[in-house]
Every structure is written in C-alpha cells, then in structure tokens.
C-alpha cells in the first residue's frame, strides 16, 4: 500500500466534505477538515503542514493558496496542482467538478492524481445528488400545486376531480407547459377572482 498522504480539505459544504473525507480516509490518508472556520488558511497550512490541499473552487480562500505558492519560500511549499502539467483533460474535469488542489512541491504526481480522482468523483456525485434533490423538491411542490389547483377548479367550475385534472392537462398541452406550471397559473388567477377562497385554503 502506498504511503498515506496528509490532506487538508477546505469546503464549506458539510455533507460533501464528509463524503470526500470518508473516501480519502478509507484509502488510508489522514484528512484534516476545515469547514467555515475563521482561522486564517495561512495558519492552518503552517500548523498542519499538509501534503495536499483540496479546496472547493468556489471558496474565496483560493487566492490565499495561490499566493502562498508564489510568495513562501519555506518548506513544505504548496504549488498549484497541474501547474507543470499540460494535461488539459484532467484540468478540465477538475474545474467542471469544482475541485482545485495544491500540493507540496516535489510530490510524485501519480500519488496526488489518485487523491484528486477521489475528490473529483465525490464532488461529482454530490452535484448529482443535489440535482436529484432539487428535482424531487420540485416534483413535490408541483404535486401540491396540482392538488390545490384541482380543488379550486372543482369549486369554481362545479366539476369533479377527474374533470379538473383533465382541464389542467389540456391547458398544459395547449400551452406546451408543465402541468405544475399551469397549476400555478390557475391558482394565481382563481385566487384573484375570489380572494376569500385564499383565506379558507390556508
């Protein structure tokens, strides 16, 4: 088994940081996490002397690391990962996933690569998890809106639930909109027509 690395992880996204930490720890690496911590990053790096710093690309702390790479002469000196490499595919996939990394000068690239691959994979799966969650939330909100619109239509048009749903579906097809969107419009219009209903609805 290769020598474990000391990794400093800078990420404000608690769930994602936990995912990355767990994955790296399971490969034997020692991980120090820095969440939304007021300690300055300079002090963190000086104290923990990590071999690798993995940082969320959206973190405002990135410029601090970039400048340490240039200004600090002491060892271990962090340098930007990929700085000397012309591997644009690897760089591209890291940027797309939102991962950036800084490593100690002189560390064998292949060893860092495996750490990067793990981080990129976790960042990507977190991203798709979040998309999935957003989609589920939207679906739930849509369903609630449809129920509410059906209720209003039934009252307003004196029809049954089945007919109300068919009305919504027809509107959606005619306008080329999602049924959830149409339901939202129907609610807006019908509630304006009879404001009293709104109070009762709540």
């Amino acid at each position, binding site marked *: 088994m290769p020598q474990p690395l000391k990794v400093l992880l800078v990420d404000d996204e608690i769930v994602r940081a936990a995912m990355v930490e767990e994955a790296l720890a399971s490969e034997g690496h020692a991980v120090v996490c820095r969440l939304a911590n007021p300690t300055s990053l300079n002090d963190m790096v000086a104290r923990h002397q990590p071999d690798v710093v993995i940082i969320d690309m959206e973190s*405002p702390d*990135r410029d601090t690391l*970039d400048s340490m790479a240039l200004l600090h002469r002491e060892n271990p000196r962090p340098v930007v990962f990929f700085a000397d490499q012309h591997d644009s595919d690897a760089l591209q996939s890291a*940027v797309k996933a939102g991962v950036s990394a800084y490593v100690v000068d002189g560390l064998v690239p292949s060893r860092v690569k495996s750490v990067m691959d793990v981080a990129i994979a976790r960042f990507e799966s977190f991203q798709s998890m979040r998309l999935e969650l957003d989609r589920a939330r939207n679906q739930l909100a849509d369903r609630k809106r449809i129920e509410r619109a059906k209720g209003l239509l039934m009252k307003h048009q004196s029809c049954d639930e089945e007919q109300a749903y068919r009305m919504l579906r027809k509107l959606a097809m005619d306008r080329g909109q999602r049924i959830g969107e149409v339901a939202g419009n129907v609610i807006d219009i019908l509630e304006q027509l009879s404001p009293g209903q709104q109070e009762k609805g709540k």
Partner: protein
Amino acid sequence: MSDTNLSTMATAAPIIPIPELSSLSLGFIPLLDAALLVVAREGGFFMAEGVDVSLSRENAWSTLRDKVAAGMLDGAHMLAPMPLAMSLGLARAPCETLAPVVLSRHGNTLVLSERYAEGMPSPGQTSPTDNAHRLRQYLDQRRQTGARVPARLAMVYPWSCQHLLLRQWLTLGDIDPQSGVELVALPPPRMVDALREGQIDGFCVGEPWGSLAQHRGLGRIVARGADLMPGHPEKVLGVTASWARRYPATLAALIRALRAAANWLNCEVDAPQRTLEWLALPPYLDHSIQHLDQQTLSSDIADLRLGDALRPNLPDFTTLAGQMQDLLGQQGRQIDSPTVEQCYSAVHFDAATHQ
C-alpha cells in the same frame, strides 16, 4: 447623384459582421472598477451591439482565471497582469490570454489598521514615501519591544497591481517586502472583515473596500495607487487567444460596446449617479456601497471616465511586465517581450473601433 456614386457609397460603408455568439457570460469580482461592464450591460450597450451578456460574480481571482481558461466563462474583468501571468503559465498550466480593452486605470488604496496608521497624515497631505517611512519607524519600535509577529499585509492576488504597488510602497520606506512584513492574499470583499478580526494589519485593494474600512473606523487610507504608479492600467477585459480566434466579431462587438459605455460615462452629467445605482444592485456590489459617501464614490466613478485610455498601450504594460520580472527574477524566470506584446496588443481594439 448617379448610380455609380450610389454603388461606390454602398461598398464604402463599413460592414459590421454579426457576432458569432448572441449570448455570452463574463466573470467579475465585486469592485467599483467592474463598472464599465455593468454600465455596458445595464445601459444596453452590449445589446445594441447584438450580444446578450450575463455577468457572473466570482469569489476569487484564481477561480475566475481557471473558469476563463477552461471555457466556462467567455471572458472576464481581470487584473492587468493576469493575462500575461496566464500566458506564461505562472501558477497554472499556460493558457495564451489577451487583454484587448483596458477597463480601468489606478483606483487602489493602501489601508493600515488604526493602530498602524497612528500619526500618518492622509495621502493628500503628505507623500507616499513619508507614510512608508512612518511605517518603517513603527515596525522598528515594535521589534525593539520584542514583538515576534511581523506585520501582516494583504493584497488580492500575487499577479496584481495591488501586490506590485504594496511592494513598491514598502521599498520607498526601506522595508524589505520579503522579510520586513508578511504578505498574504485575500479576495477584495474579505479585506474589511479580516482587518476587523485582526487577521491582517493592512491591505492594498481596489475601491470601495479601502473607503469602507475607513468609513467603519477600522483603518485609514495612507497611500493611493494613483500617486505610486500614475495612470497604470488596473483592470482589463481578459479573453483567451483561442476564444478571440473563434469569435472575432463577438470580440469586436464587446470592444465597441465597452467604448460606447465609456463615452456615455464621459458625456452624461448624471452618469456617475446612475452607475452607482446599477452597482448597488444585488449581483454587483450589493449593499457594500450603500453607506459610503456618495460624493467620494461619484468621483471614483468619474475616474473611470477613460476616454481614449481604453486602448491598451504597450509602454504602460511593458512597465508592468518589468515589475513582474523583478518578482520572477528571484525564481529564475524570464518574461519574453513577444509574449508581452501579444498579450497587450491594441490590434483587436483598433480593428473593432477604426472604421
């Protein structure tokens, strides 16, 4: 008028090619000198050139740089030295980058915490050298009383005018930027908080952050970039060379729109006020400028009335490259002049604006 004349006139009229991209995205860092981009968008100058530009607020210069290099942004509001640093591959894989338009000149302030700035007159009443000497005296006193921790001063990014200005100012006071102080980088919106929390003792940054620190009584402006490097280019529009080759008509449209925005700033009396109102919108500077003295801010905005100064002029950038060379020399790197000339060439500006 004869038919021949008409047809000659028709061929003589400038043919403006349609931009290849109808919509695109440019990155910016929340600073007053992002104003020209904001004016070009909010004032409809980009639209008038047939491009729908969205402005994307970024958290760090390095992230903005990486997104431009990776094609996730079409271009960005960049620190003047950044396109050269990108082309040379300083701090990341080399990526040929151009600066076809200057977006601002000077506009930086040097701020020290109240404790450090004690006894320092404001920049209008003294020379930058005097205040730098006062800092030197203060640092000497501190050392004599046994203070172990050096003063920690922040700039925004290693390849920035703020870093170069800070080094220049320290050198004026016979303070070695390498050993006399500790230099760190922080993104502009974090400066004021870091000063309040005592993480740093001073900084050099673009407005409004220096004025804001002073307004809140956390620090004082002790020197201005304009006095240290008069007229230096501060921000540029940065695009990769490959982007410029793929979308020449789009680039020309951006250049013309920015020039029109600058003309509007030059000519309209209420332009500074309107610009401040746009800048105060949420995606841009948000609430940060709300409490600042409108008078000062308006004059800062008026400083952005660049006129002809939008055109990249090589001598200014050669000076900048020379200062970067001083920094790089310590690492045994050499900046070559063909790269400087290509980065800061006015050829795109002239092609877009010389009818």
